[in-house]
């Protein structure tokens, strides 16, 4: 009690001098109250990171500086300071809530638009029977490439070994097969 009273008395003296324009007393006051502000902020906002806590501490210091004329030297200092800290913390919480309300969380989608033109990479086809018939009409080399790489999901190396052909030739056959299938299926849709 006596200790806190004497500490508060020291703050009052510093603040009185600061209000008179004493820069040293003001710096000393700021340095002494900063750990107290940090302690209050940390104990009331346990979930915040160290950077966010320091942000709030600085915010309180700036606020104290801006309204130092509202301190009445005939009254205790700490209730005045605590009222500012409480207010700035509540303000920060309101700001955070407002910011969160304005943010929209979205899934990381593969495509940017729902339109068909934006989904050119999508290779699934809605009519499996039509796709099966279309594959049947492909030349032998292209059909085998599609069956092995797309249907059985073999690697290029495995498929090349199975066909007895090179990887390059297999790639070309797959590309031609995909182009032919796309054209055929689009014709069917029309």
């Amino acid at each position, binding site marked *: 009690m006596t200790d806190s009273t004497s500490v508060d008395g020291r703050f009052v003296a510093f603040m009185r001098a600061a209000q008179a324009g004493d820069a040293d007393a003001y710096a000393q006051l700021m340095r002494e109250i900063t750990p107290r502000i940090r302690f209050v902020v940390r104990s009331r906002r346990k979930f915040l990171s160290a950077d966010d806590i320091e942000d709030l501490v*600085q*915010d309180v*210091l*700036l*606020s104290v*500086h801006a309204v130092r*004329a*509202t301190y*009445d030297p005939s009254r205790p200092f700490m209730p005045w300071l*605590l009222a500012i800290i409480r207010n700035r913390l509540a303000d920060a919480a309101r700001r955070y809530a407002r910011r969160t309300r304005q943010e929209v969380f979205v899934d990381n989608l593969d495509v940017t638009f729902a339109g068909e033109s934006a989904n050119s990479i999508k290779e699934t086809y809605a009519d499996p029977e039509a796709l099966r018939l279309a594959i049947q009409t492909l030349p032998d080399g292209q059909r085998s490439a599609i069956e092995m790489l797309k249907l059985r999901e073999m690697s290029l190396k495995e498929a090349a070994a199975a066909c007895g052909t090179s990887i390059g030739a297999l790639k070309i056959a797959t590309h031609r097969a995909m182009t032919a299938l796309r054209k055929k299926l689009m014709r069917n849709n029309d």
Partner: protein
Amino acid sequence: MIKDTEGLIRRLAQNVEPVRPLPNPWIRTAVWLGVSVPYLVVVMIIMTPQQHLSAMVSDPRFVIEQISALLAGLAAAVAAFATIIPGYRRRLLLVPLLPFVVWFTSLGQGCLQDLARHGVQASLLPHDPLCFLFIVLFGAVPGIAMVVMLRRGAPLTPRLTAAIAGLAAAGIGNFALRLVHPEDVSVMMLVWHVGGVFILSVLAGGAGHYVFNWRLLTAPSRNSAQ
């Protein structure tokens, strides 16, 4: 975020200038009255006080209503000045309640008497809607003076501060208005005068956040520290 807190402290201390501590809310209310009363008197003289004012002053109900309206305005001013002092007694916010209750009670009693005496139709006589504008006119300078004075304080409760300040300015404006404006039946007094005071108070409360806010207050020192 500013780079380091110690650097911020050094900058703030370097730029510290002498400030005069704000006087307590009672003294500030007296200063506010000192600014507002001459303006109100000038407007009242321009608008010519009511001819029957001396007779009205002998009516106890008129006197009670005027005193309570004036006290409500003054108490609201004290409360508004208290809201900008960190750690100040919040009980002061309750002080305007008593005169407001007296004011309402007196007006409510007058309404009932008018209704009993003249009936509903007679009590709803058309009223000059300029009343509301007159309250704005009378409350303008007291309101501006109060905003200027309140901006020297801490914007702890911007909307509440502005609403109470609006109540104080419109309350004192209404007090002056009744000295120059023809007396009306109580129902319409309640609607236009009390309603007008409250509408101004609500409007002021809505704008409070724009007039009193920490961002404006701390911007100069924040900019100089970055």
